[in-house]
């Protein structure tokens, strides 16, 4: 067909083509099974770096490494048409060393039984800005939200409860004898925090003037509530400030057991119920309920920032279900999903609450273990492997035995970003696969010739 045609329709067609070629958002039309029917250049720009086979035939496959639950999300959308998802964030890399976009936004619209439309945009810059804003939001919430009750706790330099008052008993149920002199970790459920993390918070409060965290908290009787805790350093009395200045130390001169911080714990269980659905939708994996890539990379970022301030171990384990494709082929996709959900459940039972458990690909999972050194990380990985190997998943009264391979790596100073740590854990994982699967391997530095 010739295009050197001056017919008005031909010119219109050409103008429309160019309009779509230049559109600054990615548009993809696909069939219900994900097969790509049409797409514009910006989509190819964003999708080609993700393609594993160099082609772009199926959108679900192309996006599987970063949005493993997309196929399920679309399949489960029962309405004849409507919005399947609205601007969900897809996280491509943990840091910006790899160049190009790190965060994409994806909206999916169902137009009919066999037609979907996807809109893709690069939101890397926007995402970075929003993270900053969220920190400010948390701070404003802490101050502005209607408070039903709160406990006011004074802590000494080491984070121990310095004195008791009635508000502590009202919110947490502790009487004076049971809590005075105890570390503030007493308010956290077992495994919800580490010692290094608690000291970090105090240091963060010293530096920023405040620190805030939200999560499950423990009452004296063992029951839990959803709490928000803000810690801020107490201002020095003027005579202390003068002496602090005189000895040229940045550390305030306060005896170890004197009040150095003020902590406010609020019970925000009510508020949490409302925001929980929203939080879940953007931060957890649809199928397993574990963290998604977004939550995973944000947590990693935070953990590495903390590690920069105060050296401590950070371990990463990468997990992959063995022969998962064969499980899907033999038992069907729903059974495969049941296996993944079972694996997620087993991970929860083996790991601590402070660990970050995430699904980062189709059958790929990862766990960040804060303040855990290599030996302990290996022990946890081995426990997880053994647990999975001995308890099969159940699907419709059918028992499905499966196994996992695990790679373990720890952060060290030779690495300057999280992508490097992931790469090491992945290399270890491949080593475990190569050695025959159903085993744990630790990352080994490449052998170098040395004199």
């Amino acid at each position, binding site marked *: 067909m010739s*295009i050197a045609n001056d017919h008005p329709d031909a010119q219109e067609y050409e103008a429309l083509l160019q309009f779509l070629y230049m559109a600054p958002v990615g548009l993809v039309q696909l069939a219900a099974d994900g097969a790509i029917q049409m797409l*514009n250049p910006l989509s190819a720009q964003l999708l080609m770096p993700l393609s594993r086979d*160099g082609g772009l035939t199926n959108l679900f496959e192309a996006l599987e490494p970063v949005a493993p639950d997309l196929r399920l999300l679309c399949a489960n959308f029962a309405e004849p048409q409507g919005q399947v998802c609205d601007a969900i964030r897809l996280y491509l890399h943990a840091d910006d060393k790899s160049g190009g976009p790190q965060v994409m936004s994806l909206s999916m619209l169902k137009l009919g039984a066999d037609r979907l439309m996807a809109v893709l945009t690069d939101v890397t810059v926007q995402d970075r800005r929003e993270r900053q804003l969220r920190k400010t939001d948390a701070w404003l919430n802490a101050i502005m939200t209607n408070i039903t009750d709160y406990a006011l706790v004074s802590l000494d330099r080491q984070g121990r409860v310095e004195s008791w008052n009635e508000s502590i008993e009202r919110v947490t149920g502790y009487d004076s004898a049971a809590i005075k002199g105890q570390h503030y970790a007493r308010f956290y459920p077992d495994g919800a925090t580490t010692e290094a993390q608690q000291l970090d918070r105090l240091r963060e409060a010293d530096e920023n003037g405040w620190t805030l965290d939200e999560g499950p908290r423990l009452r004296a009787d063992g029951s839990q509530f959803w709490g928000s805790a803000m810690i801020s350093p107490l201002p020095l009395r003027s005579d202390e400030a003068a002496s602090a200045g005189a000895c040229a130390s940045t550390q305030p001169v306060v005896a170890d057991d004197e009040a150095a911080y003020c902590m406010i714990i609020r019970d925000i269980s009510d508020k949490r119920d409302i925001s929980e659905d929203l939080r879940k939708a953007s931060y957890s994996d649809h199928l397993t309920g574990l963290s998604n890539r977004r939550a995973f990379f944000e947590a990693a970022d935070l953990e590495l920032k903390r590690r920069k301030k105060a050296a401590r171990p950070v371990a990463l384990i990468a997990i992959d279900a063995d022969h998962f494709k064969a499980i899907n082929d033999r038992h069907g996709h729903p059974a495969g999903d049941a296996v993944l959900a079972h694996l997620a459940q087993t991970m929860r039972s083996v790991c601590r609450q402070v660990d970050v458990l995430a699904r980062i690909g189709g059958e790929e999972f990862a766990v960040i273990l804060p303040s855990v050194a290599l030996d302990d990380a290996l022990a946890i990985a081995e426990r997880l492997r053994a647990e999975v190997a001995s308890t099969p998943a159940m699907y419709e009264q059918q028992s499905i035995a499966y196994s996992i391979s695990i790679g373990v790596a720890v952060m060290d100073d030779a690495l300057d970003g999280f992508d490097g740590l992931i790469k090491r854990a992945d290399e270890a994982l491949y080593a475990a696969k190569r050695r025959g699967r159903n085993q744990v391997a630790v990352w080994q530095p490449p052998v170098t010739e040395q004199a």
Partner: protein
Amino acid sequence: MTLHAEIPFDQTDLATLLEHGDAAALDALGFGVIGFDQDGQVKRYNSFESQAAGLRAERVLDQDLFLAVAPCMNNFMVAQRFADARADGTALDDIINYVLTLRMRPTKVRLRLLYQPGATLAYVLVQRP
């Protein structure tokens, strides 16, 4: 040697031939040719490419290749390779498999990325299977 339809896509001295070939010579080739300058502006666009994309050359010439003509190549796999080669003053001659969105249909192609240090124009050559 002059340019003609039978010249293979992967011929070694193609960069020099393109440099010296006129518009008619480029139009004789059996694959797409896009030449662009150091500002990214399209300066040459042969008829094979024009047919495939459905755009006449006058719509494309002097436009920014990676923003207005072929945004699909604006990533580290293509655009970055040219930027690096120009910045480092090194030659670039590589063939990669890629997917273009000609008339919005995903189309598997082979791209040849060509740049010679000191040359005014860099070239993307497009071969359809």
